[in-house]
């Protein structure tokens, strides 16, 4: 119903406006309701994102870089998650396009949210692995057959899953 959507929209928007600068280390962003049908009724419309990375001029979303778009998406997804948490959350390689500084801010937010919900993150990135309470290595020593083994961060490199970028 429209009232509940507006309440949720406002709550998500508020959280998004806090998360974006936290993930981007500055800048600002917000959600805007759009009037799709031209009748002035924005509560039936779409949702637009207006985003400005730190120090940059306000531009349309498609001018953003690959990493900036991914980080904006993460800000919004996490904002929704914080407003209406689910018992657990699965993230499959969402950190792939991010540089190191952004991955570190990303993982800090995951760490915070994990007080309330369980997180399962699939990643190739060592900085993300560092916040895990437990690491599962998936191997395929016998080709085509997956094996699971609980590993410590130090043993990771033998699994060759971690991308060594330094």
């Amino acid at each position, binding site marked *: 119903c429209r009232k509940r959507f507006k*309440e949720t929209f406002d709550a998500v928007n508020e959280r998004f406006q806090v998360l974006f600068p936290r993930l981007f280390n500055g800048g600002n962003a917000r959600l805007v309701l759009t009037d799709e049908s031209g009748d002035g009724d924005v509560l039936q419309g*779409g*949702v637009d994102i207006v985003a400005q990375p730190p120090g940059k001029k306000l531009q349309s979303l498609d001018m953003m870089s690959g990493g900036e778009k*991914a980080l904006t998406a993460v800000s919004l997804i996490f904002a929704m998650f914080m407003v209406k948490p689910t*018992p657990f959350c699965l993230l499959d390689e969402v950190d792939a396009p991010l540089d190191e500084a952004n991955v570190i801010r990303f993982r800090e937010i995951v760490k915070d949210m994990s007080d309330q919900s369980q997180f399962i993150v*699939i*990643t190739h990135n060592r900085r993300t692995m560092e916040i895990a309470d437990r690491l599962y290595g998936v*191997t395929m020593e016998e080709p085509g*057959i997956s094996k699971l083994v609980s590993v410590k961060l130090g043993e990771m490199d033998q*699994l060759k899953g971690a991308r060594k970028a330094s």
Partner: protein
Amino acid sequence: MRIKRIDLCGFKSFCDRMHLDLRQSVTAVVGPNGCGKSNVVDALRWAMGEQSAKHLRGKAMADVIFNGSDSRGPSGMAEISITFENDGNVPPEFLQYNEITVTRRLHRDGTSEYLLNRLPVRLRDVTNLFLGTGVGTRAYSIIEQGRVGLIVSSKPVDRRYFIEEAA
């Protein structure tokens, strides 16, 4: 409902019986390309009642059954079990249990089974359980590989649907 563990057997590349202990707050799943990490995501979705093969990167539902390798023949059945801890946030009929285990099986001949704490139930009972707890019913609780950018590139109307899920 907190997840305690997931058991996989005959599901995609998990030919042999394997499990993950998921009790901790943050679990990371790591490994080389193609070793089976995203298959774990598919397993969770499937056990929660996913009915569309497309959402599991397959053409037909039988595609989730281990179909053999150089060294092994295909499996006859795929089975996933997810075990939850009863933290109070469960439908009333489950309050009596410490743990709730949801099991889904698919046989090569196409027959499906659903079990709750080892008792046969219908798909509807499984989906009701999950609906009641909010688990897995919100699109933003599972972000699949390569799809995080979608919410930024999607049309405003589609983005609205995504947010409505949080409402």
